[in-house]
């Protein structure tokens, strides 16, 4: 009551110093007046009485100040005093303080980082006005666009323009319905101030910015008129403005060339906005266009591409539902109009053929990543929680040991009149100081960690902690702080005062309660540690299984990048361009050879199609229509990426547009469909199979069989985006600057997109397991370090407290070897109990992990074995030094100091 009341009063005084000051001044005046009156009553003259009264008071101003301070200084002073005293106590034992703060920082930092990731991937909403009313419009039941229409590969989120136009009119259902169509499946070449760049961008309906309620950092968004007139305006993201334009404040009004067309920059969005799909972050937005070169999804098209092709399902939509409208009711209200507009241009489509209706998916986290990452991130959160538990028990043990050593100090203070409350306040202050320092450091760690995580996971939208994360961290810290102050306080106070004073506390033996509590804490830690090690063993072995997959090509020394040259409209032009480019590239010293390919291997995407073989539809043995993988490659491709030709020949420069059409197939294809020899057979309209190559991975490392047919690029056309593969003699990335220069010399406006090595490209196809393994391994190592230090510290402390007892044992004839064994046995017993408790937990975690494993059983004996061995080693290793110290105790010395 005292503290609280005085703090409240102090706050009031602080907030309204003027009023309080006036009050004090008046009280001083009235005091002087009363004093003067009394003196006059006793017979002094008025002048004399007032002078005397004023003299008694002294400086009125000084008194006023003293009163003002006295009011709340008492409370604030107590807090400041506690903090200063606590800090001094911690400063006096720097070793303890550093270890405790570092341990807490690691625990809290790791938790903050993982929660920040979970928040960004699964929870966070768009940084716009009322994000809870926003939904991605999805195709349900049908799952993809209607039969005999073309799509984008994002079948369940893409609609046709007529559907968008029809639905947006419905003002009962929608406050706003917005379209946002990517200008490319990847990046779009842009040019600013003579500098070519490549960034992802989208063309959007006029209500995109106003409907979403996007806050702007500069300028303005787009309008309905901009959509109608297809005006040449562009809005930049804050990130693009920062990286590409150095946050130039004069940027509005400048010109940005997008795919060669001039656009005027009209605005910059506020930070953290990357469009309506956080899984596909955009850097700029333009109004819906009708120029052929700015077709949707990077498809070069005819004039009026978007509007003239009602059967192209290419329009992603985001909806702001009207107040009171639920997704279910919206679906029902829209169905008739949706069906009409979707099928109007299709002739006859029945419900049976295409049982589709629109649905609404809440925009929360990153939908595209959530699918892959939900389970791993949730498991990570559980694992990192275990790390925090270990860190907390560690610091708890440290505090307990420290307080036990300070019992004499507490006992003396209580004997001289300090109340238990006062000592509790001091312990609380020390814990709060430790946790505050740990949390601050942990937050800094988390900032770095999330940057690294976003880099590893290639999540463009970023994982940086936000307010939700801050609340989480504060919550965790408060829990930790309270736990720390309560636990040690109880055990500290349980010891009776006289007891502590009587015995020489340095050598006092430990109470049974304390030892048992410590043992339980350590066994608990070992259980957690074992579990974390099993998890890291399983994930690391999964990673190794990915890494040891044979790619079927020599991927390490391959540099790979994409180009999308503008203004090449005919095949002849394109061929001439690529011939010129390849010739220049091959001339670079250190480049062995180079080739062009349509589909970049390892990108996760593949072109698949049904084909006819020797005039017949390709069918599997069961009679179902079969699709094969297709790719189109330039001359010398197989030699460049290191895929051997086993029969016939590869694609050469002779396979031009005027030569007979040819194809090369891989062994999977030949084995599956042409087991008696593939050469000479014909695909589709007379494409002759002229060669068979070894199998190589197409989409990703983990894929199975990939029967593939390779066509000649020159024969199928080479306009649009292409991938260039460059084989280097040495480090491929070292060639990149030269390669960049050469590309610029061939076409000054052509950016080189997504450069990497082919090996790295394949690594991306298992980035989830990779990330998972790195994190789990990190947590495992952290656990080992924490448990080792905790165990070591506890054992050292116990040996020190038992010096007397050990001395007596030795004086009575105990051998040094027995004393050594006694300490090691103590550690091993705790490890044993830890194992027994940890095994069920580890099994449960392994069971959770099983969907994340690749070619590995969740009960993988190697992972369990290694985890067990490492834990045992930790228990032995941590015990060894304290045990040797115990064995070296000189009985006489130990007994004398008793």
């Amino acid at each position, binding site marked *: *009551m*005292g503290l609280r*009341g*005085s703090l409240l*009063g*102090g706050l009031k005084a602080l907030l309204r110093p003027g009023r309080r000051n006036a*009050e*004090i001044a*008046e*009280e*001083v005046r*009235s*005091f002087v*007046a*009363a*004093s003067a*009156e*009394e003196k006059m009553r006793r017979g002094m003259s008025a002048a004399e009485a007032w002078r005397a009264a004023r003299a*008694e*008071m*002294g400086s009125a101003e*000084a*008194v006023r100040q*003293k*009163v*003002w*301070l*006295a*009011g*709340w200084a*008492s*409370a604030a002073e107590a807090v400041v005093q506690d903090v200063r005293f606590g800090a001094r106590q911690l400063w006096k034992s720097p070793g303890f303080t550093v270890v405790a703060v570092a341990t807490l920082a690691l625990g809290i930092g790791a938790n903050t980082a993982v929660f920040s990731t979970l928040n960004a991937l699964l929870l966070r909403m768009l940084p716009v006005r009322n994000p809870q009313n926003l939904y991605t419009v999805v195709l349900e039941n049908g799952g993809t666009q209607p039969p005999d229409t073309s799509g984008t590969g994002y079948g369940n989120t893409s609609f046709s323009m007529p559907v968008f136009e029809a639905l947006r009119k419905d003002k009962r259902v929608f406050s706003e319905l917005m379209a946002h169509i990517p200008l490319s499946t990847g990046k779009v070449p842009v040019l600013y101030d003579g500098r070519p760049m490549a960034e992802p961008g989208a063309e959007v309906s006029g209500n995109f910015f106003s409907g979403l309620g996007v806050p702007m950092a500069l300028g303005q968004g787009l309008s309905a008129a901009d959509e109608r007139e297809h005006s040449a305006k562009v809005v930049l993201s804050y990130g693009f403005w920062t990286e590409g334009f150095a946050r130039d404040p004069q940027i509005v009004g400048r010109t940005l060339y997008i795919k060669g067309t001039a656009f005027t920059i009209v605005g910059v969005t506020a930070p953290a906005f990357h469009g309506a799909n956080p899984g596909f972050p955009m850097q700029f937005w333009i109004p819906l266009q009708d120029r052929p070169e700015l077709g949707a999804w990077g498809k070069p098209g005819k004039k009026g591409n978007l509007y003239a092709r009602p059967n192209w399902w290419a329009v992603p939509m985001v909806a702001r539902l009207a107040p009171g409208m639920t997704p279910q009711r919206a679906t029902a209200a829209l169905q008739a109009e949706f069906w009409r507009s979707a099928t109007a241009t299709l002739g006859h489509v029945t419900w049976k053929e295409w049982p589709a209706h629109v649905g609404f998916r809440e925009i929360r986290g990153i939908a595209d990543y959530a699918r892959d990452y939900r389970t791993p991130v949730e498991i990570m959160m559980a694992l990192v929680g275990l790390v925090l538990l270990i860190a907390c028990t560690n610091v708890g043990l440290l505090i307990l040991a420290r307080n036990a050593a300070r019992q004499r100090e507490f006992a003396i203070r209580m004997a001289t009149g300090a109340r238990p409350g006062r000592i509790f306040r001091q312990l609380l202050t020390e814990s709060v100081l430790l946790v505050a320092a740990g949390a601050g450091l942990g937050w800094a760690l988390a900032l770095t960690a999330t940057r690294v995580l976003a880099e590893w996971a290639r999540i463009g939208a970023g994982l940086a902690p936000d307010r939700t994360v801050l609340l989480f961290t504060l919550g965790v810290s408060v829990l930790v702080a309270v736990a720390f102050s309560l636990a040690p306080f109880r055990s500290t106070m349980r010891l009776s005062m006289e007891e502590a004073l009587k015995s020489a506390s340095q050598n006092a033996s430990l109470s049974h309660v304390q030892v048992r509590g410590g043992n339980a804490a350590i066994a608990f830690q070992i259980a957690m540690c074992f579990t974390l090690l099993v998890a890291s063993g399983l994930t690391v072995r999964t990673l190794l299984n990915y890494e040891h997959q044979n790619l079927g090509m020599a991927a390490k020394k391959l540099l790979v990048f994409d180009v999308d040259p503008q203004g090449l409209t005919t095949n002849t032009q394109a061929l001439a361009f690529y011939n010129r480019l390849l010739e220049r590239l091959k001339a670079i010293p250190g480049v062995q050879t180079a080739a062009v390919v349509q589909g970049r291997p390892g990108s996760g995407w593949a072109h698949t199609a049904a084909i006819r073989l020797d005039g017949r539809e390709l069918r599997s043995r069961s009679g179902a229509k079969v699709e094969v993988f297709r790719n189109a490659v330039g001359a010398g491709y197989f030699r460049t990426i290191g895929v051997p030709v086993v029969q016939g020949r590869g694609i050469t420069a002779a396979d031009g547009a005027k030569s007979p059409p040819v194809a090369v197939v891989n062994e999977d294809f030949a084995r599956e469909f042409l087991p008696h020899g593939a050469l000479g057979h014909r695909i589709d309209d007379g494409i002759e199979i002229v060669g068979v190559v070894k199998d190589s991975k197409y989409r990703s490392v983990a894929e199975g069989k990939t029967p593939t047919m390779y066509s000649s690029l020159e024969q199928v056309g080479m306009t649009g985006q292409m991938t260039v593969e460059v084989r280097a003699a040495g480090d491929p990335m070292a060639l990149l600057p030269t390669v960049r220069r050469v590309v610029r010399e061939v076409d000054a406006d052509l950016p080189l997109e997504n450069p990497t090595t082919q090996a790295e490209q394949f690594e991306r196809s298992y980035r989830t397991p990779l990330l998972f393994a790195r994190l789990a391994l990190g947590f495992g190592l952290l656990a080992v370090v924490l448990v080792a230090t905790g165990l070591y510290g506890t054992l050292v402390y116990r040996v020190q407290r038992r010096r007397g007892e050990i001395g007596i044992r030795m004086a009575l004839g105990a051998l040094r070897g027995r004393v050594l064994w006694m300490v090691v046995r103590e550690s091993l017993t705790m490890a044993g109990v830890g194992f027994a408790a940890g095994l069920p937990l580890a099994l449960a975690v392994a069971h959770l992990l099983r969907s994340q494993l690749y070619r590995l059983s969740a009960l993988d004996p190697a992972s369990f074995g290694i985890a067990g061995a490492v834990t045992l080693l930790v228990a032995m290793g941590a015990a060894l030094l304290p045990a040797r110290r115990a064995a070296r105790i000189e009985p006489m010395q130990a007994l004398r100091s008793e």
Partner: protein
Amino acid sequence: MTEQSREMVQGTLEMLVLKTLALEPMHGYGIALRIEQVSDGVFRVNPGSLLPALSRMERAGRIRGEWRATENNRRARYYRLTAAGRRALDEERRQWGRQIAAITRILEA
């Protein structure tokens, strides 16, 4: 009587103020005057200590102040004891008694 003896025993000011206010609400000068009179002039309370002490005690919830008119129709801040103040007075009284007894025993030993 020397100047020194008029100094109050360390830490007793609060107790004396509480005791004084236990009789009736009073303003600052009234308290000072009462303590001086009752102690036959042994204790003279300096306003530079009294006013801060009142402020501290008010913050601690032992007394409550309010502005009222005096008998001479001036405004003055009157203080009265709260329940917590009454408890504090009892406690301080007991402590004081113990201390006096201890000191006496030491002196007479």
